[in-house]
């Protein structure tokens, strides 16, 4: 099976966001980047599919040299090959999806995987955009996936429950936490990843549909009052919630 996993290189969850000099994106100074957590579930699912069906897992990322660190991590987990679609410009979701879709089409991917969203700009768009551009089905926010004889049965998370979705290959799946337990790269995997190829290609050009005109910080919440230090404070807390905040 030809399996493609799209991964993004994002600031880690401990990052304190500072607005950069352009006034519309994050200041990357002092920020640690990592493989987008949801993409890690996608990589694991790709590796599981390869174990079941054979074939090849190609991990693809759009960006610059820095993304190689994330691609190496995916290679260390067991992906066969990495592709860096080089582009340093700031793209919107449409622009990112256009480049990824172009690669998937050229490669002839049968199973396409990505995280349900990137934890940086939180658009939750790229998976669905790529699938529609390729004219293939998509199932998003998946917590369980079963592929048998080209038939796909997936469980996706919805508010307060799950939907069982049926589809067929080729399909695009976006991964939600809970889909699997991503493996840790083994020492052998890390050593091998250093020798595995990272193919570099220029990203297909694309127009931008959404313009970011600025970025601000949310108004900071300030510490309120300490109501008490033991169970006796419960009375006052409930009174404040009822009479002052009026939320209960």
């Amino acid at each position, binding site marked *: 099976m030809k399996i493609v996993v799209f991964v993004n290189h994002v600031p880690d969850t401990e990052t304190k966001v500072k607005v950069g000099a352009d006034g519309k994106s994050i200041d990357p100074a002092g920020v640690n980047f990592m493989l987008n957590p949801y993409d890690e579930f996608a990589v694991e699912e790709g590796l599981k599919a390869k174990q079941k069906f054979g074939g090849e897992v190609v991990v693809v990322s759009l960006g610059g040299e820095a993304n190689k660190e994330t691609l190496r991590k995916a290679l260390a987990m067991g992906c066969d090959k990495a592709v860096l679609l080089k582009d340093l410009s700031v793209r*919107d979701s449409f622009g990112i999806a256009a480049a990824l879709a172009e690669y998937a089409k050229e490669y002839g991917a049968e199973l396409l995987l990505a995280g349900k969203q990137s934890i940086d700009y939180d658009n939750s*768009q790229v998976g669905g955009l790529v699938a*529609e551009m390729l004219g293939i089905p998509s199932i998003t926010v998946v*917590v369980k996936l079963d592929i048998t004889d080209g038939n796909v049965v997936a469980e996706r998370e919805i508010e307060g429950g799950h939907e069982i979705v049926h589809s067929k290959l080729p399909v695009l799946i976006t991964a939600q936490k809970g889909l699997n337990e991503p493996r840790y790269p083994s020492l052998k995997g890390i050593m091998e990843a250093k020798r595995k190829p990272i193919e570099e290609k220029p990203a297909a050009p694309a127009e931008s*549909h959404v313009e970011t005109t600025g970025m601000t910080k949310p108004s900071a919440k300030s510490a309120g*009052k300490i109501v008490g*230090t033991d169970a006796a*404070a419960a009375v006052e807390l409930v009174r404040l919630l009822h009479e002052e905040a009026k939320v*209960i």
Partner: protein
Amino acid sequence: MNIVAFAEQRNGQFKKTAFEVVKAARTAADQLKAEVIALVIGNNVQSMAGQLGGYGASKVLVVDDPRVALYSTTAFAKIIADIVRQESAEIVFLPASAMGKDVAPRIAVKLKAGLASDCTAVSVENGTITARRPVFAGKGIVHVSVKTGTKIFSLRPNVFTAGESNGSSAPVEKRSVDLLEGDFACAVKETKVAGGKKDVSEADIIVSGGRGLKAPENFKMIEELAESLGAAVGASRAVVDAGWRPHDEQVGQTGKTVSPSLYIAVGISGAVQHLAGMSSSKYIVAINKDKDAPIFTVADYGIVGDAFEVVPAVTAELKKLQGK
């Protein structure tokens, strides 16, 4: 000018977000001198459709078909895109719900439209519509404008206010869309809903627990407090990763970003990624025995004390208030 507002329903009931989306479309439409055309998709949904008039729909279009009784990404995308074309709408509003987030990108490609997703504010200035949306789970907010002829906005549930219906009813028109077998390339066959479980993304009150609860069985007191408030149960990443709680309860940067009117954090220290996901809540209560825990920096009311004593006392006090 026309704005199409997709009003999500499940099992013949509008989701709260359906009213929020229609009302937000009305607010924008008033400034743009536009009409709000609400769209309802499902089976036997015609009789419920007219009530959207009470939230500002000028008319309601209904695609009533047994084949779309359950959700299908591909079929819904086709229907919504077709209706937008038929109505020559320039603006489309959808909820950023599980369904809306799934279908919106596919519509965007079909209509060659830009999509601003998960918006928490939409405004019109000098005839131009712009939006704000949280990024980095709420650590930042970006201001965006959509440059394409057709513009799509998905709105975060529980943020826009629907208010009360004004009681009026909108005219309902039945529409049919040509659906072929291939339009159901991915389709829901079954929906499993945990009986009565409230989802943190939709809840008005959330009671969350963290490591400070020491063991999974101690979430019982969180559940009891939540029950007395009609609240959803939330969890920190630490306890989800430890397998104490299901991941759909996780609040924070790798879980759900929430903005309820009341968020009660019990035994949660307040890691950066957790604070990002909940600090836009209207009121925050923190119960933690560590007075230096970062959660207190965002809490409106704090109790520095032992959760095992404080939480049952709060539950008992609430029951007293409710006269139980």
